[in-house]
């Protein structure tokens, strides 16, 4: 299960968050933890450089893209490698939607489309689509080309 997907700006303001199977009372804890983790490690990071951590049976993979920080938390089958796969799709799609690694302004300009794309990539904790071209079409309710 992909427990959480969190996107924030570089100052730690939450832009998008999706929790699955995380009790409401634990969410603030996760949010604070992830933002702190990113604040400590992403400062001098390169675009799309992956960072990874684990705590007991839970994995965290996070990265930076433009001015945006992206965090994924997973457990069981969503281990560090699966999460890195998901984060790769997210970064590719974000670049595709925004045309370049986004700053906060650009991200918010494309906010609607980004929400739709994320909805196609991860749906309630399960990875659903992995191909950016297909995601691009699905967001516009166009059927995929390859079938």
């Amino acid at each position, binding site marked *: 299960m992909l427990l959480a997907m969190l996107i924030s700006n570089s100052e730690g*303001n939450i832009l998008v968050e999706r929790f699955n199977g995380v009790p409401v009372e634990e969410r*603030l804890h996760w949010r*604070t933890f992830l933002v702190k983790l990113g604040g400590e490690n992403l400062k001098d990071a390169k675009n799309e450089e992956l960072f990874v951590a684990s705590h007991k049976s839970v994995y965290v993979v996070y990265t930076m893209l433009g001015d945006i920080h992206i965090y994924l938390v997973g457990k069981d089958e969503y281990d560090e490698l699966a*999460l890195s796969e998901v984060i790769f799709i997210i970064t590719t799609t974000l670049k595709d939607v925004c045309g370049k690694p986004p700053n906060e302004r650009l991200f*918010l300009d494309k*906010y609607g489309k980004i929400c739709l794309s994320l909805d196609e990539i991860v*749906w309630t904790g399960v990875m659903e689509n992995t191909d950016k071209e297909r995601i691009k079409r699905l967001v516009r309710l166009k059927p995929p080309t390859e079938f």
Partner: protein
Amino acid sequence: MAQPLIKKDDDRDDESEYSPFLGIEKGAVLQEARVFNDPQLDPRRCSQVITKLLYLLNQGESFTKVEATEVFFSVTKLFQSKDNGLRRMVYLMIKELSPSADEVIIVTSSLMKDMNSKTDMYRANAIRVLCRITDGTLLTQIERYLKQAIVDKNPVVASAALVSGIHLLQTNPEIVKRWSNEVQEAVQSRAALVQFHALALLHQIRQNDRLAVSKLVSNLTRGTVRSPLAQCLLIRFISQVIQESGATQTGDRPFYDYLEACLRHKAEMVIFEAARAITELSGVTSRELTPAITVLQLFLSSSKPVLRFAAVRTLNKVAMMHPMAVTNCNIDMESLISDQNRSIATLAITTLLKTGNESSVDRLMKQITNFMSDIADEFKIVVVEAIRSLCLKFPLKFRSLMNFLSNILREEGGFDYKKAIVDSIVILIRDIPDAKESGLLHLCEFIEDCEFTYLSTQILHFLGVEGPKTSDPSKYIRYIYNRVILENATVRASAVSTLAKFGAMVDSLKPRIFILLRRCLFDSDDEVRDRATLYLNTLGGDGAVVETDEDSKEFLFGSLDVPLSNLETSLKNYEPSEEPFDINSVPKEVKSQPLAEKKATNKKHPGLDTPLAAPSTGVDAYEKLLSSISEFSSFGKLFKSSAPFELTEPETEYAVNVVKHVYDGHIVFQYNCTNTIPEQLLEDVTVMVDASEAEEFSEIASKPLRSLPYDTPGQTFVAFQKPEGVPAVGKFSNNLRFIVKEVDPSTGEVVEEDGMEEDYQLEDVDVVAADYMLRVGVSNFRNAWESIGADFEKVDEYGLGPRESLTEAVNAVISLLGMQPCEGTEVVPNNSRSHTCLLSGVFIGGLKVLVRLQFGLDSSREVAMKLAVRSEDEAVSDTIHEIVASG
């Protein structure tokens, strides 16, 4: 819901940085949402408003019930629009709003219509939304469509139905399980993602049917797996099948070849999954491990941090069971110590600490020193714990490891980190006698500049116990007295107690201690003054060099002879009156610990929190208890008390366990009984022991328990005489006999005065040879072996018959003798065919015994053992051989 963590900065200079949602307000957006009701819909405008609503929701804004309902109703109007972009937004918005059950009905018909639409994409999205908001009844209505969707030729529709199935399986398993034929068909799909989702769902549907899972796995390993993701799933299912098949031998291990082939797959994800699956096989051989370790080693030098992390994490796990298999990777691992990602570096270090040999310790410590300065406390704690284990493994290296610990103790760090270091030093002091003096001095230096009151007081207490036993106790006094001058009241009070302990234990120091204690009489804190006064009076404050009598020592420093929880209960029940509280009224019976709690405490390494020299404290308490019973007071010194052994099943009417107390010429069974029935009071509780299968024992005394009320543990004892100094063995069968009286649970009053006599059958208890052996370790076995000399050495060889593994044979002999394994030799490297195990202990009569066991395993799994015993008495060496020969 989401809360912005930091308030947004409203006045930024840079124009381009302005958020398009700047100044957004919920009220205004809700007003804007009225455009959804316009007869002429503007799709663009509507999409913008939905985006704003999504932003608000993501920012943690919550809508009231009325607001949410209003928005939801308005959004449903948008189904009239044929605009694709807007329709996609509507689907998302409905999912985000998660309408309540009574509102769902409003959209159901629109969604059902979309589900049967000719437009595939409407179908896919409608399925996802319906499955998100639906309940069981609606699900039966749409089940037919979902089953069709699973086998739809459009992969998006099929995936939507399959992923919905994965979610619905949690809430409506019986419905989803009916889809297995369709899901099975979808597993054969040519679309990679459909296959992946179908595989995941099919496995979940059939996870409790081992045969079906095994069949599914067999089919897929022969067929085509279209994506690395699906292949990873398959590998996981294979691991499960292998595990459940229980095969531990290479020859009959199914699917190993498939896993091995996956190590050459082009996707890293698959390679890693296969490697991990191989390392986790139970009883994996080194031949099986090698290819997996080789690929993991390659990953260690990958440019991708995630791969490095995954590899080092897996190798770290392997190192726990098969340290030798990982040693080849040590060079790569050493280069990871400087990895930018601290998680990777920490894992690399802890792995190296597990796999390192004695000669590499110093080099490793040098590398770690540089590393420690720039990692967070939680990583440092992991490293400290690994170093502690390493030191216990290689006691001869204690000097460099202890120095390392003391160095890091001086550096900055939080409480948990400092506590981990102090705990480690304390454990090393306890387990490695040579490390004692230097360890104590390190602790003394630490409290000179310790900001944590808790740690200071704990260390002072520890110093009080261990310091007086060192060769030169006077050197600690300065550190302790400095606390009285410099610290807060809590630490000062502890320091006074510690000083008094030195005074009581070391007669030559007494006059000087008294001078210091007298100074404390003028302290500003009353607890400090009270303690000083108490100690001066009890130890005889006239300053003469006299021996402190045992009673005073016992009074001042002996352990409290009542369990703290009982004291707490008694104090709570005590009502203030003329009559002072009497500590003798506190029951001394120890409540037996619930099993779960016991497990938790057993796992913990004893640090400062646990009483010092825990086992002996337990024996002290027992000794005190037993000597207070007149029938047993003449038995002499208590040699050993066993751990409690349960004589009843858990959750029966009466819970009884037994502790065996061994004396030179006697043995006492202490039966700890608990009555778990609130309606009963038991009286005259005794245990009738049948010793017919214990010929050398004769019962000489029995001490019944007068009354056993509900949930208040009590004890009854039975004592036996046995030949002096002889490790007599036997089996004793037990019967609990008591008079049961009915009581009113609400008042606790006895309802019927005449009780009934009843018997209650208990399990048997055995007295075995191991009961006559104390588990006492030595830090350096070779030195101890040489110093005890070969005068009474006895060597013989034994055949132990066929065994599953050497580990089993080693454990059997260790538990037969009840001795302490030394230098970690109880761990047999996997698949080794020979092993040496070193044991030490003290036999009844206080005689030191050392044992060297050499095991060998032949091709037919027959185990041969060479047993060499050295002890301080020839008879004891013979006895050890007799025990093994008869065991």
